[in-house]
C-alpha cells in the first residue's frame, strides 16, 4: 500500500484519515474491483485500485490455443460487448494475414458492432443511474438490452458470449427477416431513448450529482491514456471509427459527439448521443446491405506469416487494441496482447475521485464504464 496522504490541513484540528475498502464485494464496483479509499470525513484524499480478482490469464491461454479458438476467449473479456472483442481480434489477424473481407461481411460486422455498442451502453446507463439512485432506469435499460440480446440470439444462437465472427468474415449469414427486426428495433430504441432522457437529462438531482463531478481536461485525459467516451467527454475528437476506419465505417455517415466540460454529465450526454449515432449507423448499414459472400478467401489452416501488428478498434469502452506476434511456425500466436480500454480508463479513476466525496466515487466508477472481465483478463 503506498497511500500517502497529502497533509492538507493547516490548523491544529487534525483528524485521523479513515481508510475504507470499497469492494471487491460492493454493489457498485461493477464486478470485483476493490478501491482502497483514504477518507477525510467523506472526502477522498487518495484512492488505490486493486484489480486482478478475475485474472484468468487470457493472454497466456491464447498463446496456447490456435488462432480460431482464441475468438471465443475474446468473448470472455468484455462480456457485455463480446462481438466487439471478436471484431477487433478477427481484424487484427486479417491484417496480419492480409485477408480481404467481403463487403457484405464488413457491413454486417458494422451492424453487429453497433448493436453491441447499444447493448453495452444500455448496461452502462442502467448501472450508472442505479449507482446514483435512479433505480427505474436500470430496469428500462435492461429491457431494451434484452431486445439486442434477442437479435444476437437469432443471429448466432448465443446471448452473451457470441463467438459471432470468424477470421475472414462471419460464420453465418443473417436469418431471413433479421434486417427488418433490426430496423424496427432502431425505431423502438429511439423512442425509449427519449424516455431515459426524460428521466435523467434535465433532472435537477441528476444534474447536481453529475455536473462538475470528475472534471478532467483534454491534456490530462490524453496523458492519462483515457479513451472512448471519457476522452471525448474532455473534448478530444478521437474516435477510431473515424480516425482509422475499419469494417464499413468509412462508408457510413455519423458524428462523433464531443463534450466541453469533461465532467460526468458530459460523458453521460456523449453516450446518450452515441446511442443515436449507433442507430443511425445501423440504419445505413442495414439499408445499404450489399449482396455477396460473407467469408473471404481464408486458408484452411490459419497460420499468419511471421510478423507482428497492433490493431485497435473503438469498442463501446474505448480503444480496444490487439498486439499480436506470429512466429509463422506454430498454429497459435506467439504473443497475444490485449490493450483493454477499461484497464486504461480505470487508471484514471484515482485522478478523478481525489478530492470528491464517497458518493461521487460510485458515480465516477459508473462514468468510466468498466467491465472487470476486461480489466483483469
Amino acid at each position: 500500500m503506498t497511500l500517502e496522504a497529502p497533509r492538507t490541513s493547516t490548523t491544529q484540528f487534525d483528524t485521523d484519515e479513515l481508510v475504507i475498502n470499497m469492494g471487491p464485494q460492493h454493489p457498485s464496483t461493477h464486478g470485483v474491483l476493490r478501491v482502497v479509499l483514504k477518507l477525510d470525513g467523506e472526502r477522498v484524499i487518495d484512492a488505490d485500485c486493486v484489480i486482478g480478482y478475475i485474472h484468468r490469464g487470457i493472454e497466456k491461454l491464447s498463446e496456447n490455443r490456435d488462432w480460431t479458438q482464441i475468438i471465443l476467449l475474446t468473448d470472455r473479456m468484455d462480456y457485455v460487448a463480446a462481438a466487439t472483442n471478436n471484431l477487433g481480434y478477427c481484424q487484427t489477424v486479417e491484417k496480419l494475414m492480409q485477408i480481404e473481407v467481403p463487403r457484405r461481411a464488413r457491413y454486417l460486422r458494422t451492424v453487429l458492432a453497433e448493436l453491441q455498442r447499444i447493448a453495452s451502453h444500455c448496461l452502462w446507463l442502467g448501472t450508472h443511474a442505479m449507482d446514483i439512485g435512479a433505480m427505474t432506469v436500470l430496469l428500462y435499460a435492461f429491457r431494451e438490452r434484452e431486445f439486442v440480446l434477442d437479435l444476437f440470439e437469432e443471429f448466432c444462437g448465443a446471448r452473451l458470449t457470441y463467438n459471432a465472427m470468424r477470421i475472414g468474415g462471419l460464420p453465418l449469414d443473417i436469418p431471413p427477416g433479421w434486417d427488418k427486426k433490426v430496423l424496427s428495433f432502431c425505431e423502438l430504441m429511439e423512442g425509449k431513448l427519449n424516455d431515459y432522457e426524460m428521466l435523467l437529462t434535465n433532472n435537477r438531482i441528476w444534474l447536481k450529482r453529475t455536473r462538475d463531478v470528475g472534471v478532467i481536461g483534454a491534456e490530462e485525459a490524453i496523458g492519462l491514456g483515457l479513451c472512448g467516451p471519457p476522452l471525448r467527454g474532455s473534448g478530444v475528437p478521437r474516435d477510431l471509427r473515424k480516425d482509422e476506419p475499419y469494417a464499413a465505417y468509412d462508408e457510413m455517415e455519423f458524428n462523433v459527439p464531443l463534450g466541453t466540460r469533461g465532467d460526468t454529465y458530459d460523458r453521460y450526454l456523449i453516450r446518450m448521443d452515441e446511442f443515436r449515432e449507433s442507430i443511425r449507423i445501423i440504419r445505413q448499414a442495414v439499408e445499404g446491405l450489399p449482396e455477396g459472400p460473407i467469408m473471404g478467401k481464408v486458408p484452411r489452416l490459419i497460420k499468419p506469416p511471421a510478423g507482428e501488428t497492433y490493431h485497435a478498434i473503438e469498442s463501446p469502452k474505448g480503444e480496444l487494441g490487439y498486439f499480436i506476434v506470429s512466429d509463422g511456425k506454430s498454429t497459435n500466436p506467439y504473443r497475444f496482447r490485449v490493450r483493454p480500454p477499461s484497464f486504461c480508463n480505470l487508471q484514471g479513476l484515482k485522478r478523478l475521485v481525489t478530492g470528491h466525496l464517497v458518493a461521487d466515487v460510485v458515480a465516477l466508477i459508473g462514468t468510466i464504464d468498466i467491465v472487470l472481465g476486461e480489466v483483469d483478463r
Partner: protein
Amino acid sequence: MADETKSQSQESGQGGADTPPDASARPAADPKKPAAAAAKPAAAAKPRPKPKPKAPPEPPKAPEDQAPPEGAELPATVTAVQDGVSGAVQQVSFWVGDWTIIVSAERLLDVMRFLKADAATLFDYCSDVTAADWPPREKRFDVVYCLYSTRLRHRLRVKVRVDEKDPVESVTALWPAADWLEREVYDQFGINIVNHPDLRRILMPEQWQGYPQRKDYPLEGPGELLMESPQDWLRVRNIADEAGAVADADAEIEIE
C-alpha cells in the same frame, strides 16, 4: 533458414501491395510499391538461437522484425527521430502497415522525450506498453510501446530489447498512462523497470512468485493440478516445502 525467410518476406511484400481494406489509413505509412526482393538486412541483430535443452516451448526461429521494403519511403516520424536523436534508432521495421523503431534501452528515454515533444512526431498518447518474451535470445525481452498522436493521428511502435536484469527507464513521467501498463509488464514478465513511481504487481497477487507471461512459465498453474489430482498436488507441495527454499519459477506452487 535463409530461404524460408526470403519466401516469407516476399509473400508479405505482395500482401502489402494489395492495399488491404483493413490496413492503416495513414497515408505516410502506405508504401504501395511492390517489394518482391525485400531481403533481410544483414544489419539486423539476430542472434542465433542457442540450443536450450529443456525449454518448454520450441524456440522461435522466425525473424520478428521485417525490414521495410526496399526503396520504401520512411515516414516523417521515423526520419524525424533518426535525425533528432542520432544513433539511438538501431533498426527500422515495417510490417502490414505498421512502422516500428527499435532503440537501445539506454537511449529509450531520450527517444521518447523527443517523440513526445517534436512537432513532427507529437506522440502525446501512449496507447499501450507491453512485452514479448523470446527465451533463447540473449536479450530475451522486447518491450513494446505503442504510441499515438491525437493531433497528427499517426502511430508508431517503439521497441526495446532487454535482458532479464537490464533496467528499462519508466516513461511514466512523459505519459502517466504508462503507469499501470508498466506495472503489468513488470507483473507479467518481470522486466526491470526503473524510476517507476509505484512498481507493484497489478494483476497477480502481491506475494506471487514467477512471471506468468514468460515463455518458460507453465501454462497450467497449481489450480488445475489441485483440482485434477489433489494427491499429486500435495506431493509437489511437500517437496517444495521440504526444499525449504523459494522454488524457482518452473516448479512454482503458490496457493493463496
